[in-house]
């Protein structure tokens, strides 16, 4: 079963090939970025979400190379479902040591949810109590950007956004990922 293989692969890479870093360092660094963005944009949370997504995108563009090297991937995923498995069980595992649950596939197999049972970024976090952050800020929005950037580098144009977050008081933290299209390698960009 492919799912099992993926989780074994993720586990093995995490154990043997990953340099670990102190979790608090990551949590505090990411927290500082978000809270500084909130200050810089005067609590315009829509803009903060956009900036986080942009940062994530730029991370994703680079991170995919690391992912491919560490996971020793030699072939493409045969379909989007396999991609989802690899994202959840290998990608998230080796970079964040979490394995989100894949759920809520649409019938056409182009849209799924990642449910983050635990979110290391959100440890200790309480959103600002200004009555808007709870409705507007997606605290972990950088992850959407990372996925978008990383998948774009392997010829998949996706759209990713959060639809619920425990920080907002929802029961789960859920990210929705939609495959828009496979980018054709052959065509130069202006022919799009």
């Amino acid at each position: 079963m492919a799912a099992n293989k993926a989780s074994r692969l993720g586990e093995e890479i995490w154990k043997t090939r990953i340099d670990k870093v102190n979790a608090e360092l990551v949590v505090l660094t990411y927290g500082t970025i978000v809270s500084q963005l909130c200050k810089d944009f005067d609590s315009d949370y829509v803009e903060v979400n956009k900036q986080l997504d942009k940062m994530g995108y730029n991370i994703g563009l680079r991170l995919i190379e690391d992912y491919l090297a560490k996971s020793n991937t030699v072939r493409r995923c045969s379909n989007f479902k396999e991609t989802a498995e690899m994202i959840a069980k290998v990608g998230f595992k080796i970079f964040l040591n979490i394995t989100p649950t894949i759920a809520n596939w649409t019938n056409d197999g182009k849209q799924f949810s990642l449910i983050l049972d635990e979110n290391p970024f959100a440890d200790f976090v309480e959103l600002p109590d200004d009555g808007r952050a709870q409705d507007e800020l997606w605290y972990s929005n950088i992850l959407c950007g990372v996925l978008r950037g990383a998948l774009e580098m392997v010829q998949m144009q996706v759209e990713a956004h959060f639809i619920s977050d425990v920080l907002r008081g929802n029961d789960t933290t859920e990210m929705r990922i939609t495959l828009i299209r496979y980018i054709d390698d052959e065509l130069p960009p202006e022919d799009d």
Partner: protein
Amino acid sequence: MSMTLPSIACLGVIGRNNNPLHISIFNSYDPSTNSFRPVRTPLQFSLLLSSTLDVFELRSRAHAAQGTGLTGDFGLLHAVDERLAAYGFETNTGVKFVVVVDMRGRKASTTAGVGEDGKRSGTVGTTGVGLREGEMRVVFKAMQAAYIRLMQNPFYDPDEHSPVAGPGKKITSRKFGEEMRKIGEGWMPGVTSL
């Protein structure tokens, strides 16, 4: 005569500029009416906490002169009357935790042997005696842990809460308030973790 046990009447967190950051007040048992209510008004508790600040300062000056004990448990700061006593703890950054204990705040018959949460608490039953040395350590540890978690929240700005000049903001975190409540209600002599 109904037996009573010590309980926490008030928890206070005071910033490094002696500014109040957080005050939680807890109900005490009142045997005359067999009801639970705070033993003092919020204003009185606030004044009581303020009055501990001088003790903090005196002690830390004494500590500095001896070159010892920059941080940690300050022990009994001041026994207000035969019921209330204030205990203190100061961290290296000057944040102070104060616990006001009501020596007769808990009804013994409901708690002796079995706590409200159903946990057995072995040493309860020694009614009427004062608190042992170090009895408060578990409370301070729990308060400090809660304070650390609060500081880890990126949206909590320590500078806004303890500015050099003027009064700062108070702690508004719901999570922190909730943790203070758990500590204040959960503690009784002899508990080893909160």
